[in-house]
Structure formats: structure tokens, C-alpha cells
């Protein structure tokens, strides 16, 4: 039934997915149009599209196992892992570690070579700076510090976030680290689905909206 109604790609995309469950079958019955509607199902509308073919392909950082580092040296990468796991630690819920945030950042920073090489420099300089600050204060590289001292240093670097009058030479790198960690975590399956429990981008036959009388009156 499917191929004629909404085209082969749809058949693959939707029907395989949906017809595998009772809920999916119910959904299809309720939702399907009575007659074909889409351009891709009309005679003469299939084409030549001289596309720009665009096919979703996940990142090597999400698919390669084990992930092969592309940008950071192993000791730098270790520091990136520690830092991202400090921003979003693993507690009773998964964190940057489970989401492999450091892998993804390695891949993105590597990929910046073409259009935004300054991003590579910001990371190299930032990691250099954090080791320098760490050496000045505690006499060793950041990755060699005990957890409490790492925490203290990162807290110092973040001070301007709480106090607009505060300044810290490591603040710019802290902001970069934080924003890229958040982006990597919340665009990952672990961050978006497992941690936030985002339930959308799916197929519903109806949308109930708010079901709480106390919100409505």
C-alpha cells in the first residue's frame, strides 16, 4: 500500500518505522490521507532535480569505534575530557563522558580548519593557558591536579560569569569550553534523549496540549 501513497523514501522512512508496532499501525490508519497528495507521488513530478543531494550522515565522533583523534594530542585530549566532564559531570545521570563530548569537540575543532581556523588557535591557546595557570598556582599541569584544585581553578576562571566587575585571563576560554560542551552534550543522543528526556520529533495522532485544569483556570 505504501509505495503508491507517499513514495518509496517515505515508505522506508515511515512505514518501516511505524508498521513494526501496534501503536505505529494505529497511527498510520488514523493519519494517512485518503488520496495521494505529495509532489513526489504525482506523475511527472519525480523529476530531474539536479540536486545538491543532501543525505543526513552522522559524525565520525558518533559512529567511529574506537574514535581516532583528529586534532588534539593525547595529553591535550585528556585535559579536554577532564574539563568537559567538569562542566557536565556524570552523577546519577549521564554526562559529558557518556555523551563522548570530548570526541565531538575534537572532531569539530579539527573541522574548523577550512572556514574558521581561529577556533583551533583558541583551543590550543586555551589549553596552554590553563596549564600555565595551573603550574603557576599549584606547580603542575592541570590534568595532574587533584580534583579539588581543578575545581578551584575552573571556578576562578568562571568568576566574571557571576560578577560583572570580575576579570580573569582564563574567562574567554572558560566560555568557549562551556558553550561547546553544552552544544556537544545537548545535541547528542545521551544529552537530548537520555538526560533531558526530550520526547518529541515523533509521530502523534493527536496533540492533547496541557491536560492540567489548574493551569487553565
Amino acid at each position, binding site marked *: 500500500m505504501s509505495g503508491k501513497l507517499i513514495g518509496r523514501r*517515505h515508505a522506508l522512512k515511515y512505514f518501516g518505522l511505524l508498521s513494526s508496532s501496534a501503536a505505529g499501525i494505529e497511527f498510520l490508519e488514523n493519519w494517512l490521507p485518503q488520496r495521494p*497528495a505529495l509532489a513526489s507521488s504525482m506523475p511527472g513530478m519525480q523529476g530531474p532535480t539536479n*540536486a545538491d543531494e*543532501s543525505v543526513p550522515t552522522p559524525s565520525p565522533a558518533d559512529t567511529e569505534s574506537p574514535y581516532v583523534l583528529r586534532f588534539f594530542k593525547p595529553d591535550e585530549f585528556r585535559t579536554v575530557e577532564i574539563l568537559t566532564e567538569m562542566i557536565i559531570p556524570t552523577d546519577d545521570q549521564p554526562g559529558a563522558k557518556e555523551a563522548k563530548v570530548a570526541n565531538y569537540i575534537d572532531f569539530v575543532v579539527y573541522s574548523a580548519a577550512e572556514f574558521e581556523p581561529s577556533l583551533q588557535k583558541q583551543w590550543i591557546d586555551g589549553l596552554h593557558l590553563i596549564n600555565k595557570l595551573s603550574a603557576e598556582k599549584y606547580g603542575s599541569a592541570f590534568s595532574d591536579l587533584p580534583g579539588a584544585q581543578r575545581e578551584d581553578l575552573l571556578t576562578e576562571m568562571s568568576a566574571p560569569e557571576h560578577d560583572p566587575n570580575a576579570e580573569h585571563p582564563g574567562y574567554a576560554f572558560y566560555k568557549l569550553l562551556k558553550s561547546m560542551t553544552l552544544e556537544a552534550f545537548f*545535541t547528542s543522543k545521551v544529552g537530548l534523549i537520555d538526560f533531558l528526556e526530550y520526547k*518529541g520529533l*515523533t*509521530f502523534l495522532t493527536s*496533540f492533547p496540549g496541557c491536560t492540567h485544569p489548574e*493551569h487553565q483556570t
Partner: protein
Amino acid sequence: MASQPVYDVIVVGSGAAGGIACHVLATQGLKVLCLEAGRRIESAKDFHTHTFPYGWTYRGNGKPGQYGKLPQGMEWKIKEWTDHLYTIPDEDPYALAPGAKFTWTRMRVLGGRTNCWGRGCDRFGPLDFKAKSLQDGWGEDWPITYDDVAPYYDKVEQFIGVAGSPEGVYNTPGGKYLLPPFNPRCGEWLIKKGAEKLGIKVRPKPLAVLSKPYHGRPACHYCGGCNWGCEVAARYGSVDSVFPHLEGLPNFTLRTNAAVHTVLMDRNTGKARGVTYIDARNKQEYEAYGKAVVLAASMVESIRILFNSRNREYPNGLANSSGTLGRYLMEHVAFNDIQGFFPQLAGRPTTNDDGPGESCLYIPRYNYGHKDTKKYLRGWRFDFYTGCGMGPGPGAELPGFGSAYKKKIKELYPAAFSIGGYGEGLAFDWNYVEIDPDGLRDRLGIPQVRFHTFAEYPHAFAIRDEMYAQMEEIMRAAGAEIFPYKKVAPYPLGSVTHEAGGARMGDDPKTSVLDKWNRCHDVKNIIVADAACFVTHPEKQITHTIMALAWRACDHLAEEFRRGNV
């Protein structure tokens, strides 16, 4: 050349205005050629509505810097979901006068910007068409009234399928053919209660999204991915709702990859006799012939075509004897949203809040008769977004890091809100577009435009301040916590993708380009059917009005054909 067909009408563009023009003209039996500058697309193949961020190589964001520095209002549009649909400004630049800003969103594919549009379908009201005479004496009136357009709003709503409420509020009319509205989310109810405490009305947002199956199209399945194009055509777009029904008709021809360069004139009659276009694949120029030309290429493109068609008779641009072509450009007064959360919703289990992609309620304009007309004119609308989205929500904006920070993000995630608005933008002759005097050309070699547009004028700042204050008041009345925010300058023209004006309608050929039927005063068989015809820019979204006016203009054109007047 003699063997080339002469069409009744050449329609330039296939988006909001072009799609409607093709539908109206071809279904009335006229022989129509539609020229679309972009390629043909198929929704099943070119839209990736159901792809999660982690389905993309760069989680949807593209390689760092891949899209260049996008102008204000385009950052969220060009993503891996859509980068094959939009024109990337760095790859095909346009010119800006010193200090000027403009955000030009181009989607050069079949269906134009109806592929990824906001779907909001407010009607303009009676006061919007006669703002000068019925509101405050400023600017110009349209040469038409709400009653002239109302039947065409009806036709558009019937044709495209709009969910909403049949009841309007003052100067924001409802419609009798609307499909049932969508069910609001928790946060939307809270805002409604808060606003109503202040005497401000909240109403279902009219959306071109199907709340039930309609005209062979399926109902919305509430995935929320509409901004990336709807794979199943549950929201209106001309790719799936217009062209499949026209192709195959003997009197309709669609030609894609055909970028119209100029309108061809007939020296003897002073009328248009067709267009020249460049085939985007081989960059060769061709001619096509028609008894009338409907420009529906988008505000900027239609104006550009008229300027590029300048000739001995019209040295300053075709149909520009008034000198107003390209002038009186408008856009909403827009700026950053205010964000925060509802304490009463914090920490609850997450819910699927995607719904029909857009918010289900909104606040239409309510400040009629306000007394501050020395500071600002007219009014504003507010739109708000609440609940669990595809991002971490407001908690991520907080300072800090670590486990406590992470828990706070999770706690506030289901309680998120943001609220923003559009204020009425005013028409000034000093906001204009022209052909770049330095000779910039686009990727096909067609002379490109230069914008002289400035959004930071006194009215815009004043109405902005009023809007910030009102948004805060409403959100406090709703019991929300508002995050600290920075007031920013009004965004550039074009940043809402609601640019309009530049070939405005009017009764006086000395001060307007188009007559009340969207025909050029100077050349009556050229119609400009897109937002270039706008005279005012109220707080409402503009696409519905574009479609209604295109329908009206083309209905009239078809009638003129029947009477033998073309």
C-alpha cells in the same frame, strides 16, 4: 524565434505569491508559464524533518564557519537540514551602503520560502489598510479596504488550510473557513491567564498547519520540525499544494532554473511582451513571451527585475516614472526575546510539547487608541514559546558548571518560556534598495542590489521599549521568573523575513508604482504580486496578505483577459 509560444501570462516565482498566481490563473484556463529561478525539489527527498541533530555530521550546525557570518535573523535558518535550500550570503553576496544593514533570506528552489515559513496567518484589519486616515494621519493609506481583500482571505484560507479560531478581536479579523485550532501547552495557558488579568486578550494563532486531513493532505503529526520543511505537506507549501495539481494541465508550464533578468517591452505598444531569463545551469540568456507578466519573485527580486529592465523611456527603472520604485521598504520592529521559566512548572516530568511546531496561542495587538503617538505609532503583537524543546532551555543560560548546574538545567527544562514581538514598521523614502552602483553581479551575472536600509529610527526604539515593558508585565502576571536580559537595537530590515514595500500601491501614479489591482501604473500588463506592493506594515505576519492580494490581482487579470482588455 517565431515558433516560440506566446503565453497568456508569465508568472515569475513559485513561492507564496507565485504559487497562488499560478493556481488562480491556470485554473481559470489561462495559458501560464511559471519561471522559477531555483531547482525543482521534492519534499520527500529534500526535507529532513525527522532527522535529530546527532543524525548530522556537525549536529546540524555545519562545519565551523561554513555558512560565513550570517546576518541577524538568518543564523537559525541555515543549518544542515536546510543548507541545500537557502542561498548562503557569502556565496552570492548583496551590497550594503555604508552603515546600512539588511538580512536577505533567499530560498531559490521551487516553492520559494513557502518551504520553510513561519506558517502564521493573521489577516490585516480595516485599520491597517487605512492607517493614515483611521489611526494617526501618518504615512499613506492603501488604495483598497479590508472589505476589498476579505473575500480573498477567505479563498486563501479555504485553499491552503488554516487552523485557528473563527472569532477575531478588534482589527484582527477571524475567518469562517478555519480548521479547528490546536490545543495549547501548559505555559501558554499560564500566559493567557496572566495577560487576561491585565485585560489583554489572547487568541488561538491562525496557522497554515492542518489540524485535520484536508484536500488530500494529511493532518499534522506533531513532530515540531516544520522549520526544516514538512515532509508530508501538513503545512501549506506550494511545492506540494499547488504544482502537483497544475503540472499535467495542457495550459500550464513550469520551467525551473530560470532566473528572470528583465521584462521585455514592446516599443510600439508600450506594453510588456515577455521576459528574459538566464538558465542557471548553462548561464545562457533566453526569452519567453507573454501577454502579461506577473512578478512574484519576492520583494527584492521583483524590484531588482524592474530596475534591471530600465530602458530609454524608463531610465530609472521600468515602471518607475514616480521615482518611488525601491523606496518605502519596511519590516517589523523586532529584537531579542525575553526568556525565563515558570516556577510552577519547574521539576515536572518532561512532556512532548512539540505540537504543531508553532505556539498555539498569541497576543494580537491590543493598544488601540493609545495616547503616546508623539513617541511611537501603532502597535505590536506578542508570540511566546513554552515547554520542552530540542535544546536545554533557560537553565543553560545560568552561570556556573558542574552537577548542581546540570540539575538546574533539567529542573527548568520543562518550565521554559520565551516571549517576543513584532512592532509595526514604518515606511520611509530613505529606506530603499537600488542596483549596486559599484557593479556587483550575482552568481549568474545579473546586476545585484544594494540596500540603504536602517532599522534604528526613533519610532522603532520607542515602540521597542514599550514592548519590553509590556512583555515583563505580562510574564510577571503569569507568575513567571524573568531572566536578566540586555536591550538590543532593533534588528535590520529583512531579519524577520517580513520585508515589504518598494513598489507600493496607490491611486496616484506620481507617488506609487502600482494601482489598486497591483498593476504598474506605467505599464498595465505588468503586475507585481508579492510584498513589494505593501503600503503599511502592521504587526501581523504578512504572508497571508501576500497570498490574498496575489489572488485578488490575478482574479482581476483573468477577468480582464475574459473581457479582452489585455
